[in-house]
């Protein structure tokens, strides 16, 4: 019972050329994005499991909400087992 099992993970990736530091991403995905002191995003490169639906949803909101369209979700097919990846 329950949701479809998703395998693999994703990384929220930023294109630093397009980014203008609007800071919408950290508001929309506060668990994935924090800002450096200049207001530009710092995103952990460790993949997040696709089964983490709330993280995926917030990543999608951040991608959609970016005024410069500098964000994208990159899928990672292989997710290391165990606690090495982010849940």
């Amino acid at each position, binding site marked *: 019972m329950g949701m479809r099992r998703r395998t693999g993970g994703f990384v929220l990736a930023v294109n630093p050329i397009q980014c*203008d530091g609007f800071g919408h991403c950290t508001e929309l995905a506060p668990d994935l994005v924090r800002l450096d002191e200049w207001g530009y995003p710092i995103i952990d490169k460790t993949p997040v499991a696709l089964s983490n*639906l709330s993280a995926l949803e917030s990543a999608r909101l951040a991608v959609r909400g970016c005024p410069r*369209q500098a964000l994208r979700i990159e899928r990672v097919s292989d997710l290391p087992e165990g606690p090495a990846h982010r849940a």
Partner: protein
Amino acid sequence: MIGLTSPYLWYTTRATGLVTLILFTGVVVLGSLVANRVGGATVGRFELSELHRSLSIVAVIFLVLHIATTIVDSFVATGPISVLVPLTSSYKRVPVGLGAVAFDLILAVWISSLAKARLKNETWRFIHWFSWLGWAIAIVHAFLTGTDARTGIGLVLVTLCALAGALAGLWRFYARPARAAGRTALSPLAPAAEAPRREAPLRPTETPRREAPLRPAEAPRREPPPRLGESDEWPPTPAAFPHRPQDAPRRGRR
């Protein structure tokens, strides 16, 4: 059916015209707020962005109403062509022509924003500058056409709109935070106005060299952000993200 000769279409034209002007002034002001990176704890920046976007849709709907009722209405003789092509209206040639110019500009801005994903960002931003011109021409159009805008509450409204937009524009260009000025030098006014004053920290690429560069070990360590799902629980419960609305229990399945 309301006859085309009835005055109600004409009243609708006038009323929607004023409402459209107010709405577009709001859109312009909100756009300035977004561009100058307003927002934070009380109102999120993304919320201002979304409001700018949604309000612009409402404004375009009212603009379409304003224009459609003008065409259909037979009280004043403006043809369907004069909506897009300036100076083709037999009724108040120049004022209605200015309205057509404003509509063309707003149309360009609107279409470019709809196609934003397909455009280069520079292209989109260049076209978006024309919203200022379109808004300003719309103010002049309102005043010159002036069935309502020259007396009483209409004049007050148009003047307030003009003031609000003009102030927003000045603030947009001259009170721009240095942080926002880094990359957005595409503005025709940006280089001259903003190059000398730079109070905020420089962009990382422009950081002046320190005398002795810090080695990684010496660099002040920041507390790493709390990782998602620090607990060993698998799959993680939404309790790991307690402050976000989307963690409310979902209804559908994915």
